[in-house]
């Protein structure tokens, strides 16, 4: 996708004006959020598991290189071909070379945020390779020529009516009026593609260093189809997805689906251990694993911001965020949105290029309270704000406001005068405060003084 983080303010304003998107987001986020919270209410050990998950990820980061070496060795022993990519360009080139060397003209993809991150689809299309997203939500946004707007619910912003019109226009099917018929359109359209495709591309949820297992998690089965029938399976993973062993895997599996959708387990969890075997009917002949850095090592070496690499891509922080709930994923202008996107974007794209994203947070802490690996997202956002300020990424009135604010906090007179002045301002310019909240009788300071005369 085209990165547009610089246009955050414009995009967010546009989203705020779109009532259809607002309604869709409110309904979806409310629903998914309730599912998540019920799942954990009924699972008291979940809180301890989240602590453990945090510790495991911290350990992985301490030990990343040796773990990757171990993963390489154990996956190779299973017949997997390993390729390390320092950046997006290298990963794209590697995949294109595979496609050309094997004369592949059709590629199917299981859902993968990492391949969105490296802009793979655009590159394949540019090279006349037919590529199909097979996750229903991803398929919808692909047809609409839009990027996904939520990590786990890519078409969360689209209404059923819009999808029906889209399918009718692009696929020539009747205008269906229910989700079931529309889902079957996608099922039927994509089914033969898995069998005709020369390559299936997937992401990786976890890669187990001790035995080379690649874990893929999904609800629809398109991931299984994409990694079972094409003769060549290419799995693309960020290097931070490696974990030491099966013991650690169990911890993550128990909290991932609960955090993402409120399910105990997602419908399908595939533990892939190399390409298909001679005694099996199916499975790919070749399995290639791309270990993608693309800026991750830089974050790894930045101890203050390192916890942003713990992310499992469950989407819980998006769904819980009051800012995301209003503006949706597209406003962030990048593949990852919401609190985790606002944390990663300045690190991947440059502080000033994404300077507005960390500001778009109330620091309410909802994201940290739902994160399965307890990433301290508000702390990271504050840290990023500081760095952006140090780099000069503040405009004139922000600077002026901070000067005044700092004066009032350092001088008792200024501190006392601030609420009085603010109340005067609200009376003189009521239009500036559109919520129409009535002013209280007294300021808090006055009230406190009257209640506590000593």
């Amino acid at each position, binding site marked *: 996708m085209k990165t547009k983080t610089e246009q955050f303010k414009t995009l967010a304003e546009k989203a705020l004006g779109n009532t259809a998107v607002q309604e*869709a987001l409110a*309904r*979806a986020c409310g*629903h998914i959020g309730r599912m998540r919270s019920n799942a954990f209410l009924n699972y008291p050990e979940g809180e301890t598991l989240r602590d453990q998950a945090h510790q495991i990820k911290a350990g992985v980061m301490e030990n990343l290189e040796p773990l990757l070496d171990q993963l390489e060795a154990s996956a190779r022993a299973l017949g997997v071909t390993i390729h390390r990519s320092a950046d997006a360009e290298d990963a794209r080139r590697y995949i294109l070379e595979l496609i050309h060397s094997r004369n592949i003209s059709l590629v199917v993809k299981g859902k993968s945020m990492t391949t969105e991150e490296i802009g793979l689809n655009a590159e394949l299309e540019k090279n006349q390779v037919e590529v199909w997203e*097979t*996750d*229903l*939500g991803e398929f*919808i946004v692909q047809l609409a020529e839009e990027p996904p707007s939520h990590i786990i*619910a*890519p*078409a969360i912003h*689209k*209404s*059923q009516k819009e*999808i029906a019109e889209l399918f009718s226009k692009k696929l020539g099917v009747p205008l269906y009026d*229910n*989700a*079931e018929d*529309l*889902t*079957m359109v*996608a*099922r039927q359209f*994509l*089914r*033969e593609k898995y*069998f005709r495709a020369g390559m299936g591309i997937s992401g990786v949820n976890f890669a187990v260093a001790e035995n080379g297992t690649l874990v893929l998690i999904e*609800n*629809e*089965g*398109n991931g*299984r*189809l994409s990694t*079972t*029938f094409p*003769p060549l399976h290419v799995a693309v993973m960020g290097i931070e997805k490696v974990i030491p062993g*099966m013991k650690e895997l*169990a911890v993550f*599996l*128990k909290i991932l689906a609960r955090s993402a959708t409120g*399910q*105990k*387990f997602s*419908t*399908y*969890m*595939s*533990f*892939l*251990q*190399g*390409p*298909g*075997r001679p*005694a*099996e*009917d*199916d*499975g790919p002949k070749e399995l290639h694993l791309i270990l993608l850095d693309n800026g991750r090592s830089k974050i790894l070496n930045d101890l203050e911001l390192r916890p942003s690499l713990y992310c499992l891509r469950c989407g819980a922080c998006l769904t819980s965020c009051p800012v995301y709930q209003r503006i949706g994923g597209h406003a962030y202008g990048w593949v990852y949105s919401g609190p985790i996107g606002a944390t990663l974007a300045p690190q991947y794209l440059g502080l000033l290029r994404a300077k507005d994203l960390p500001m778009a947070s109330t620091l309410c802490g909802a994201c940290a309270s739902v994160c399965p690996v307890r990433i301290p997202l508000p702390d990271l956002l504050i840290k990023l704000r500081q760095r952006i300020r140090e780099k000069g990424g503040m405009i004139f009135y922000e600077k002026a406001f901070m000067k005044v604010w700092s004066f009032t906090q350092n001088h008792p007179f200024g501190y006392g005068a601030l609420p009085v002045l603010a109340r005067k301002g609200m009376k003189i310019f009521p239009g500036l405060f559109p919520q129409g909240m009535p002013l209280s009788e007294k300021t808090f300071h006055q009230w406190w003084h009257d209640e506590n005369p000593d």
Partner: protein
Amino acid sequence: MKTRIELLEQLEEELTALRSRVYRAYSKEELLSLLNSLVDTFPTPKIALEIRPWIKSFDLDEHLIKENRQLLHLPSNERRKALRENNWEAACTVQIGISGADYALADTGTLVLFSGSSGGRWISLTPNVHICLLPMERILPSLDDLFPLLAQKENGAALGSAITFITGPSRTADIELTLVMGAHGPKELHVITLLY
């Protein structure tokens, strides 16, 4: 510690909540009549049977063959060769896949299938209806009971290239959060527990 039957009850409760159908077979005759009634919901059913030895020992193919029914025999080397050579039309048109389960996890309602012992992955994936046969002693309380078994040597060859955890029929809610079964995988999941 839960008893065998308590584990089964828990598994059935979870599976039912996941929109799967559960049955118990106390004898081979019961199993056959259950299978026949499920298969009879299709006018001209095309069925695929998995190869694992204990399923083979039931001689299901003999008993399921009737007029109007078509059964893909597995394994046969010719069949596998055809599948391997990407001649998937046959597999695509199968409506009912009958597989075994290597294990089940009671607390999450999960079936665990090893591609090694299944002889592949497709029977639980491409058909509209997946019928899974589960010997009762294969029900474990949870994931924590399974992982040590995966590491055991005697399971090594059976594991194969893919261990698949199946928790309900294929599903999606990508359109306005409306739950739809059978997004890409089976629309129906029927689990028959064998208690004999």
